[in-house]
C-alpha cells in the first residue's frame, strides 16, 4: 500500500517534469529568487540545514537560463542570489583543516534567510485563508438610522423662542377680552416659588396652559419674567416638542439650590 502511494507520487513527478514547461508556467512564476530556491529544495527533498550547494546551484542556474519561470522584472535579484550561490560553492571548496562549525559554514547565511523566508511563506498561506474568509464578510459602511426618542423631535429652546411664544399667547389673550383686574399684587418671589412648587409636584409644566390660567395680565407678566429667570439660572429646562407647539418646562436635576432673586439689580 505504502509502496503504491510512493509509486504514484514518483509517476506524478515524472509526468510533471515531462511537461515541465507548461506545468511551471501554469502553476508558478517565481516572484523572487528565494521562492525559486525553496521550490528546488523541496522538489529535491533536501534538508534545508544541509544543502548540497553544488547541486542546487546547478539547478538554480538551469532555471535562470530558461527564464520562463522567473519574473523578468526581478532578473537582477535572481542573478544576485546566483552570485551568492556560486560564492558559497567556492567557499565550500576551500580546503579546511578541521570540521567546520555551524557558524563558519559558508551556507549559514543562506540557510538563515531561507528559514526565515519559509516561515513567512507558511504564515502567508495561513493569512491567505483568513483573508479569504474575511472577504466573504461584510460590514456596514454607513451609519444606521438611529431611532427617534418617543417624545418626538425635541428642540432645545432659546430665550427668543420662549419670548416669542409668550407674546403670541398674550396676543391671543387680548383677543379673548382679557379682563384686567387691578389691585392684586403678586411678588416675584411668590411666583418663583409657585412655579418651582408646581414643577416639584407635577414634574413638568405646560407653558401654554399655565399662562392661560393666570388671572391677570400683571400676574402673567410676572410669571413669564420668573420663567425667564429660572431658565437663565439653570433651575429649569424648557423644551419645545415641535416648532409652534407648546413648550414644556422641567426642573433640572442639577439645578442650583437657591432660587434666583426677584430683582436683577442689587
Amino acid at each position, binding site marked *: 500500500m505504502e509502496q503504491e502511494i510512493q509509486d504514484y507520487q514518483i509517476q506524478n513527478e515524472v509526468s510533471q517534469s515531462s511537461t515541465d514547461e507548461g506545468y511551471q508556467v501554469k502553476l508558478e512564476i517565481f516572484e523572487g529568487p528565494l521562492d525559486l530556491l525553496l521550490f528546488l529544495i*523541496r522538489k529535491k527533498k533536501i534538508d534545508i540545514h544541509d544543502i548540497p550547494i553544488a547541486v542546487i546551484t546547478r539547478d538554480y542556474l538551469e532555471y535562470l537560463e530558461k527564464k520562463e519561470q522567473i519574473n523578468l522584472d526581478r532578473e537582477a535579484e535572481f542573478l544576485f542570489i546566483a552570485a551568492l550561490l556560486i560564492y558559497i560553492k567556492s567557499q565550500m571548496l576551500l580546503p579546511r583543516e578541521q570540521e567546520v562549525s555551524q557558524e563558519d559554514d559558508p551556507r549559514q547565511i543562506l540557510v538563515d534567510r531561507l528559514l526565515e*523566508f519559509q516561515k513567512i511563506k*507558511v504564515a502567508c498561506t*495561513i*493569512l491567505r485563508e483568513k483573508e479569504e474568509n474575511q472577504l*466573504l*464578510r*461584510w460590514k456596514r459602511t454607513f451609519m444606521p438610522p*438611529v431611532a427617534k426618542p418617543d417624545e418626538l423631535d425635541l428642540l432645545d429652546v432659546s430665550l427668543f423662542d420662549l419670548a416669542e411664544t409668550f407674546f403670541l399667547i398674550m396676543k391671543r389673550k387680548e383677543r379673548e377680552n382679557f379682563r384686567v383686574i387691578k389691585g392684586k399684587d403678586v411678588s416675584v418671589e411668590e411666583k418663583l416659588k409657585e412655579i418651582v412648587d408646581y414643577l416639584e409636584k407635577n414634574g413638568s409644566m405646560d407653558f401654554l396652559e399655565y399662562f392661560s390660567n393666570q388671572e391677570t395680565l400683571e400676574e402673567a407678566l410676572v410669571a413669564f419674567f420668573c420663567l425667564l429667570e429660572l431658565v437663565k439660572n439653570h433651575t429649569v429646562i424648557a423644551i419645545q416638542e415641535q416648532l409652534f407647539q407648546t413648550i414644556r418646562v422641567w426642573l433640572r436635576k442639577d439645578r442650583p439650590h437657591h432660587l434666583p432673586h426677584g430683582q436683577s439689580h442689587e
Partner: protein
Amino acid sequence: MNEQLKAILEVLIFISQEPLTLEKIKEVLGEVPDEELKAALQALQEDYASDSRGIQVIQTAGGYLFTTKPEHDQWVRRLLQIEKKTKLSSAALETLSIIAYHQPITQAEISAIRGVDSTYSLKTLLQKKLIKIVGRKKAPGNPLVYRTTERFLQYFGLNSLDDLPKEEEIAKILEEEKQSIS
C-alpha cells in the same frame, strides 16, 4: 444575564462602523463590573451564532463588530451589485506578513528578507491602509519605518498581533508538508 445590558451593547456595537473596543464601551456606560460586561458580550455573540441568524458579532482588531456571515456573501453582492472582493497579490501579502512579524521595519530590511525590492508592494499596502509609516530609524539615511495598522487586523479578522500564526503552528505545517512530500 443582564438582558438590559446586553440590549445596550447590541445597540452600541450596531451603530459603530469600526470595531467597538471595551474601553469605549466602558467610557459610554460608566461603571459596569467587568465580569458582567463580558458575560453580556458573550451572550450577545452566542445569540447571533445560531444558523438562523445571518449576521453576527465578531471580535476583531481589539473590538466588537457586526458583520454578515461568510455563507451569505453571494446575496450581499447581488444586492449591492458588486464583484467578489479582490485578494492581495502574493507579493503584497508576502511583504505584509514580513512587516507584521518584524515591525517596526524599514523597506531595506523587508527587501532583504524577501530577496526582492518591495517598493511597489509597500505602496499598495500604504494605499489600502494596511500599513503605516510610524517614523524613522536612527540609522544611516534615516529610513522610514513601517508598521501594520488596525485595519490590517480587521482585514484578516485578527483581534491583535498576538493572533498572528505562531512559530509552533508554522513549524507544524512545515512538518506536515515534509511528510506529505517524502
